């Protein structure tokens, strides 16, 4: 199977394109007011059909995260970074905490032990970073 800059089999490509753009905006890779790659550029990069790329962009545009400027292209809307980070925060519990608890339960790790593990890991990181 041909590798496509990391796109996977399991979910519609347009959603993955939208997700990646959103991640880029949230991480600051794409600044507010900056031009977003065009449909054709995305299609060429990911090696996907332009209509699929367009759909991905439209998802973000429909959510107000991108502004369309006729004749020029799509630009990151003001406030979109904040919106996306807030969204990610809201999803944090569902995406990370729940699975963590599920796995911990499976392995018989109780909440107190879990909290201790988290602290330990956190300290380690700080130690390395500093």
């Amino acid at each position, binding site marked *: 199977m*041909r590798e496509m800059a990391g796109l996977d089999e*399991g*979910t519609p490509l347009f959603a993955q394109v939208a997700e990646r753009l959103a991640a880029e905006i949230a991480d600051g890779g794409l600044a507010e007011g900056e031009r977003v790659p065009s449909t054709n550029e995305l299609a*060429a990069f990911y090696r*996907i059909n332009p*209509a699929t790329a367009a759909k991905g962009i439209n998802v973000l545009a429909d959510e107000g995260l991108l502004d369309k400027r006729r004749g020029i292209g799509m630009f990151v809307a003001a406030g979109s970074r904040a919106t996306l980070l807030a969204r990610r925060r809201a999803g944090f519990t569902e995406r990370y905490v729940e*699975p963590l608890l*599920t796995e911990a339960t499976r392995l018989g790790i109780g909440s107190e032990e879990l909290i201790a593990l988290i602290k330990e890991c956190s300290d380690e990181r700080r130690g390395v970073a500093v």
Partner: protein
Amino acid sequence: MTPAVSVTGLTRRYPDHVALDDVHLTIGTETITGLLGRNGAGKTTLLRILAGQEFPSSGSVHVLGSPPAENENVLRRLVLVREDQEYPDYQGYPDFKVSHALRAASFCYQNWDAGLASSLLEDFGLRANKAVKSLSRGQRSALGITIGLAARAEVTLFDEPYAGLDAVARQVFYDRLLAEYADFPRTVVLSTHLIDEAAALFENVVVIDRGRVVLDAAADGLRGMVTAVSGPVLAVDSFTQGRPVWERRGLGSQASVVMVGQLSGEDRERARSLGLDLAPLSLQQLVARAPGWAVGAGSLTERTSV
């Protein structure tokens, strides 16, 4: 807007078998459609009929609004790239060369781009002064692809055009196709059995099995539609309850089932908590099972607007 291709009740009978059986199909303008199916399913026959090279036994076929057979107006806006294309050949005389083939094509297609043709020859490493009859299979395919792309025809049909091309050359084809499609949008139909390579290029896919259309859907929507669920038997059964299931295999306390239906985040979470393994089926795997589709195929069908 008139669809680029509109086929109703198309049947093609041969003395010993039926190649196409009551085919109904619509292909929108400026789209890339994958025509998929096993060898002998009828893809080639369909494409040849669309190109006016074969005649239907019954039914109606419209390309760019009118029947293509013997229709100058349609045929000059259409190109079909076949893997078994015959080129003029003399025996003993000076040979028919690649450059001649391109020249002939340039007479016939008003949008012909000679620069693109040369650039494609270069990409494929094909020399213009080589005799066509001395080309390897891969080189013949490269020539066909070059003609197909440089013609910039409104309707561009490819019938498994990559015979003899290695993976690198095929990638060149896909990339060039995409680039050309972006610059000069056209209606493209690509028939292939190397499905996963090209899957991301398609906007729509049509699957043909034994002469009948068994699936006609948006390509992207099929991703994640069919999943292989495996794990402890009871968990599997519980998870798949109420959902269309295609296959079931079991070994001891483990079972593996192919299930139809998009999975939500909750579904995935539930599967994880049940200790189940989820593996989405690729388009290729999906199509390989086409003859066995019984249940749930209807739910696969959705269409992007034409």
